[in-house]
């Protein structure tokens, strides 16, 4: 989805300033990593020539030099990234919706991630950043980048080996839902295991998948499996119109989304390959599409509220 967005003159000035800083950082990074690589290469050559002591001295000298250069710019990088996020991203998001606040150090708490019941696995490693919150007409919302992983261990000849697997790498979006409900309804992408469970529940035994909700929408049933603590409440939330909207939203997303309706809110998980709201170091800031993807993702999140019709407040809530 392309959002109609124009960078304001004030933000353009900040970008111009940051571009100077970026060039310095890029040059320093290049020098630092260059020195380290050169040191390693020189050490290898001298070592091959049969001079291990000299190889060690030459290699160490270059590597230390490289590390000093990189260390000296670390504060500049932090400041550059901070300014980019606050003064460029934050200010630009505000031009699309004035209520928006952007906090790059904050995110969706792990307890909230687990409590949303979007995923059955608990994360072993969890990282979140870039919290964006605001209000669109009557609906308050917030979303943040989340990287949740679980680990598995295998026994090898050299001992135990840990493998990390993604539960979610993407965005968790949450908004105040426009209807009252007490239970939990979860809509998850259909995988092989859940398809088999749903088929058994539908056609043979009904034990096991007691919480399975069989809905009438064909697209919905083909792509999702729905569970809920209350059959009627799940249908009260997932009206035919709501199922169509979720299907539409899913079609617009690169990967299959997951949704949960809990504690009077809707949670949506979007798996994404791209890391948003980051300051580029080796790419110029002076390009017209600099903020395109970041603004598009916000536009998409605001679209959810419209698509799910969350601003319609005709119920008792």
């Amino acid at each position, binding site marked *: 989805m392309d959002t109609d967005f124009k960078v304001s003159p004030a933000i353009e000035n900040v970008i111009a300033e940051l571009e100077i800083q970026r060039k310095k950082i890029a040059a320093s990074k290049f020098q630092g990593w260059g020195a380290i690589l050169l040191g390693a290469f020189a050490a290898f050559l001298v070592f091959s020539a049969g001079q291990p002591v000299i190889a060690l001295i030459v290699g160490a000298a270059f590597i230390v030099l490289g590390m000093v250069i990189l260390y000296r710019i670390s504060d500049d990088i932090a400041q550059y990234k901070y300014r980019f996020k606050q003064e460029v991203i934050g200010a630009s998001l505000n031009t699309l919706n004035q209520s928006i606040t952007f906090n790059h150090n904050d995110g969706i708490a792990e307890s909230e991630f687990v409590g949303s019941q979007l995923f059955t696995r608990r994360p072993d490693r969890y990282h979140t950043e870039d919290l964006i919150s605001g209000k669109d007409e009557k609906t308050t919302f917030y979303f943040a980048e989340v990287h949740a992983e679980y680990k598995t261990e295998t026994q090898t000849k050299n001992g135990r080996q840990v493998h990390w697997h993604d539960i979610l790498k993407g965005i968790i979006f949450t908004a105040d839902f426009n209807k009252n409900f007490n239970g939990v309804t979860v809509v998850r992408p259909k995988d092989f295991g859940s398809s088999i469970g749903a088929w058994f529940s539908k056609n043979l035994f009904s034990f096991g998948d007691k919480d399975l909700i069989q809905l009438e929408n064909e697209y919905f049933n083909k792509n999702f499996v729905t569970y809920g603590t209350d059959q009627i409440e799940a249908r009260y939330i997932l*009206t035919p119109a709501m199922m169509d909207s979720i299907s539409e939203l899913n079609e617009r997303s690169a990967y299959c989304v997951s949704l949960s309706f809990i504690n009077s809110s809707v949670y949506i998980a979007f798996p994404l390959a791209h890391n948003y709201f980051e300051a580029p170091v080796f790419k110029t800031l002076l390009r017209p599409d600099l903020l395109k993807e970041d603004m598009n993702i916000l536009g998409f999140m605001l679209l959810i509220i419209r698509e799910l019709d969350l601003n319609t407040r005709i119920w008792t809530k």
Partner: protein
Amino acid sequence: MIIVAIIAIAVLIFGIGIYNSLIGKKNQVANAFSAIDVMLKKRFDLLPNLVETVKQYMQYEGDTLTKITELRGKAMGNSVSEGEKLALDTQIGTAVKGLMVSVENYPDLKANQNFLNLQSTWTESEEQIAAARRNYNSSVTSYNNAVMMFPGNMFAGMLGYQTMPVLETAEVERANISAKNLFNN
């Protein structure tokens, strides 16, 4: 011999599973219907309050209000069957919908907080009943599948279970709820 015993036990367990599942599905249908009944009662309970509130403002809608009161009286009667109750609810729904459209002509009523609350509750009850009916239809479909498909049909025949009709979807349930159409304010 052991293999035959294992197969016999497996068949027995499978048979018990199918049998229990069939009974469970039939009970689920009865349960789903009683849920509709509860929702209907909640909705009918709203009506006296609604009629009382709008009566003070709507001087020219006396006939509609009387009709709504009469329909409610019939629906709440003891002798009315479940099917008739659902049909009466559809008639009440249509009458109230007409009433809500007439609200446009009464600006004072449109601004009345009590009426606005009742209107929201009414809309909510409408969606809850729609959800309960969909749940009932889903339970019936699941039950009918079990009764008609192999191997459930063997047990269904023995138990005398027959397929059940699903409820027809009322027009109001098919249409998307629209704030604009409902409120126009």
